[in-house]
């Protein structure tokens, strides 16, 4: 595990961080860049291209349940690659309970691209799988919380019905 994380961190170090692209988009505009990160959310297959969100935040290297804890918000960028560069063997994108595939994308950073109705994204020409998607072991469900909740809910229903009983005497 430590070796895998170390090699992943090494690959990510050689790439351009998305935060740099965000900070100085004009400097990077139309430049060829390499970005490495976790594919998140969904694959959006549109004709001959595939869009996806690539996060290169701390959670890409070390998923939240496996790491040292919370390390800020997500950072990522939209990526578009030719469909021929995409492979089903990468696995499903990252979500709850799954670390998405880590890929290295080589492409052109486009900032407010006029040809793409103002989209800011990486127009990828090559994509290489660094590490396939894998499940993340989330903490187990707390039986105590579930039972406590059920007991309180039942108690609430009982008290509610008891409280709703007629209490006022009608004056004749």
């Amino acid at each position: 595990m430590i070796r895998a994380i170390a090699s992943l961190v090494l690959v990510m170090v050689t790439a351009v961080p998305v935060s740099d692209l965000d900070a100085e988009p004009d400097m990077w505009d139309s430049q060829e860049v390499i970005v490495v990160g976790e594919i998140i959310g969904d694959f959006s297959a549109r004709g001959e291209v595939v869009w996806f969100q690539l996060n290169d935040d701390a959670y890409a290297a070390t998923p939240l349940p496996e790491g040292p804890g919370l390390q800020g918000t997500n950072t990522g960028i939209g990526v578009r690659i030719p469909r021929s560069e995409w492979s089903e063997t990468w696995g499903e994108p990252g979500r709850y309970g799954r670390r998405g595939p880590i890929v290295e994308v080589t492409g052109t950073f486009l900032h407010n691209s006029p040809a793409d109705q103002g989209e800011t994204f990486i127009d990828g020409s090559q994509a290489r799988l660094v590490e396939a998607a894998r499940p993340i072991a989330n903490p187990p469900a707390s039986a105590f919380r579930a039972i406590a909740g059920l007991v309180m809910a039942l108690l609430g229903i009982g008290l509610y019905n008891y409280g709703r009983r007629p209490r006022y005497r009608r004056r004749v």
Partner: protein
Amino acid sequence: MLLKPTLDDARRIAVDLGRILAVVAGAGLIPLAWAIALGEWKPAADLILMIGVAGALAGIAEMWRPKTNTQPVWGHGLIVVSLVWLVVPAVGAIPLALSGHYGDLIDAYFDAMSGLTTTGLATIQDLDHLAASTNVWRHSLQFLGGQGIVLAALVFFSASGALSLYEAEGRDQRIFPSVGSTARFIWLVSVVHGILGISALTIDGVVAQGFEWSRALFHGFTIFMAAFDTGGFSPQSTSVGYYHSASFEAVVAVLMLAGALSFGLHHAIWQRRAGLLRNIEVRTFATTVTVTLFVTLTGLAVGGLYTETSPLLRRGFFQLISAHTGTGFATVSSPELARWGGLAFAGMTVAMALGGMSSSTAGGVKALRIGLTVKSVLMTVREALTPSRTVISRTYFQYGRHRLEPDLAGSVMTVSLLYVALYLLGAAVGLAYGYGLAESLFESVSAAAAVGLSVGVVSPDMPVVLQLIMIFQMWIGRLEFIAVFALLGFSLSVVKGR
């Protein structure tokens, strides 16, 4: 002389509060079903705990019913509503705090308050790995808040004093003589928009974006709730920019605008009532949207961020509608939005401050107040400039002609000024923490007007005092001041009353 509240007063408040918590418990069943369907067992247990806490509190409150069958008075409604909007976020924050995605309890409460007030500012971390069911709960909070959580309770419970509860929540238009019928109509409008909106977004997700249908439904469901209720939460960290789709943005823009229209206007449109364009509120909203859109687009064009017309119109229109309706969706990143600067930034800030229509899901000063304030000022100027014997008609048109009484003019101006003061309060605290004037004001207006756009001030690392001030801004801004003042008065009477 202040009258000390009796124990029966407290019991009456507790009963109404409890019934609203029962609705919260019921609403928790939706994400719970989602969690069970997806096998998300840890979030399911957290949701059951939240449902249990809300249910138990509701039961205890019902047990504590007053011993005499007294009718609630105005003060009860105001106090109940102001308390509801403090207590429900605390209960609603339980599954958020237990999710492990929040740094501390204040962060979780901040997000729950942001959700319930349909603001959309967020301090959540690693949102992209959050359980779908917890995400659905965040969006359900927005839907409950946007519809008016008290309104939700009125559908299920024929509460006595319903009118005071209804109006205390910042709604001043009754569509039908009965509050219950009005509440049911509002829910009917929302359900119809829900069916159409979720269908349109899901179809766009499958056809235009190539999503799996189940994921398209998830995105459609969550984005609809945040768009129609002008909330602004998103299931992904990059908001609506995640979808890279102009058609998706167009559907979302329509839903945002529909959410910012008053439910009275929805009813009038359904009835095909004539003369709607003569309404002062419709005219004011159309005018402010047009003017702020023009200012924002001009600023963007001058700033040179978008060199072609199509991107300029797409980005500018979506962001402006998102700001003016108080939704807070973004198709550009926070650093990019901060770079807009100058005129575009000013246009966006003013649009956020103005907000949508009254009795809608939007926040801000509201179009009716703006229209009446402008009309009142213009009439006063006319009176000053014309001979003293000239009679000037002080009327306005809003579903019929009404007289603009000095009392009404005074109250709308007072509330408008209170909003300005609230905007300045947050900006001053932001400045005190070393943020720039423009970003402090932008973020303060965004919180107080329940918008949710951010240029980076709101984050998990933000100063706690600023975070608490923003929680206060979201709360008092959503309730439009009066209910909160009533709660303060009630608290004072507990201590000093006789």
